[in-house]
């Protein structure tokens, strides 16, 4: 599928140490998985090798609904990469996931790049599969619910 942004940006790769591999595997399957502690059940993002709450090293990745609210946002005008030279304005949102302990995740807000940007607005995830890439990857984008 065509991405929200023009092609040519660096593609995501799982961390060489495997820390976030279950997250990327989940996105490829259309599932959002966030790190969670097996001892205290607390959610944690970005991923780390230890639970910051109880210091357990026993962590898993749990599926959570790709539904959230806009915590903050930015409409970008200046191209910071040659791939974006002809992009024009585009939107990046910081989405809070209430079902995953309120952790934040970064994505693009698809739709009109000049749409109003409202902190607190509800958004749902859209899995953006890049099947023509080598290797394939999937981004999690967001769209307004209302």
């Amino acid at each position: 599928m065509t991405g929200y942004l023009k092609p040519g940006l660096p593609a995501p790769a799982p961390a060489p140490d495997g820390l976030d591999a279950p997250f990327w595997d989940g996105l490829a399957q259309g599932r959002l998985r966030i790190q969670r502690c097996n001892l205290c059940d607390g959610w944690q993002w970005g991923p780390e090798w230890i639970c910051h709450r109880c210091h357990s090293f026993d962590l898993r990745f749990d599926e959570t609904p790709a539904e959230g609210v806009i915590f903050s946002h930015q409409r970008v005008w200046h191209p910071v990469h040659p791939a974006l030279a002809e992009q024009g304005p585009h939107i990046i949102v910081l989405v809070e996931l209430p079902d995953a302990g309120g952790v934040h995740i970064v994505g693009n807000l698809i739709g009109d790049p000049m749409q109003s940007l409202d902190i607190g607005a509800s958004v749902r995830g859209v899995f953006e599969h890049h099947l023509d890439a080598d290797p394939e990857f999937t981004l999690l984008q967001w769209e307004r619910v209302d």
Partner: protein
Amino acid sequence: MIDRTLRGRVAVVGAAETEYYKHGQSPDAEFTLALKAIVAACENAGISPNEIDGFSSYSNDRNDASRLAAALNVNDLRVALMQWGGGGGGTAGAVANAAAAIATGQAECVVVFRALAQGQFGRFGQGPRRSHVAGPGAHTVPYGLMSAAQQFVMRVTRFMHDHGVEQEALRAVALASYHHAQSNPRALMYGRPLDEEKYDSSRWIVEPFHLYDCCQENDGAAAMILVSADRANDFPNDPCFVLGAVSGSHRRAGAPVHNDPTYATSSFATVAPRLYEMAGVGPPDVDVVQSYENFTGGVVMAMVEHGFCTPDQVNSFFRKDNLIADGGSLPLNTSGGNLAECYMHGLGLTIEAVRQVWGQSSSQVDSVDVSMMIAGPMVTPVSTCIFGSEAAL
């Protein structure tokens, strides 16, 4: 009980910078710039570079202390100090580390320095050019979130949303810097004034940052010489003492992928109280402030976290007339700062804070006894310091 403080124990006795250049324009290599700034700072202090026995820098400065010591024929290298963390968050931390080394007898004469030659080593404000990205960047870069402006703007947007802060507050920071740069021949924006209309009509970088809300990128170097306070009167410049210098950040400020639990902050909430406690002064005692402008919004947040106004007072406090040396209640960034003098990762601002105590600023504030420098808003760790005159001790 041992009095664990830096207050009054260390003095700044020399400071200098190279000529400042637009990024990529330095005729000198970065190491040469570092040497030139250090030699000039020694000349300003009236000492030989051989007398330096410590180097203190930050932001992974590339100019190795041992190479500098060999090049300068340093007699007795005692400390080589590097503050962790990128950006300019370590500027005042490098002062704190140098002062701590002197106060504890580890060294006698430490130079705090920073050198940047982006033509030689590449720029900050551009994204990576590689085909793949792994680690924390994998969760931001593929969405186009790459530059420092983008990294920090969502903190500012959330802060502005929470407190009803208007664009004009950010604009006032830019106007104050450019106003002061018109009196400073060192400033790259000397002779290039900024007014409201020019700001308002400038292009967006990323909303709400216009072009003029963003720091320059530059080549150059700066250095300052610190010695024990009991030698403060042995040098040509008036005595200027470190009253306090601290660094740090709040719990989980460095949580990856924008998961700082107190997100709409510039990271000084826990740091500023420690600074004031050490310095023995409070916000009303501060005569002039240099506050690191990576982006104007971070200055607003940092000033709030240092207690100069409440979040709800931002729109009335941040007016140009209130922030300039000629008549403002709290003059801000009196050299032109990172926006309009030079982006020397905040060390230019630190030197300006010292010059205000020395009475040597190009926008001198009357009778400065307490002069603050705030370093690197919105990164972690941040740092902040206060310099004072003899009367402030």
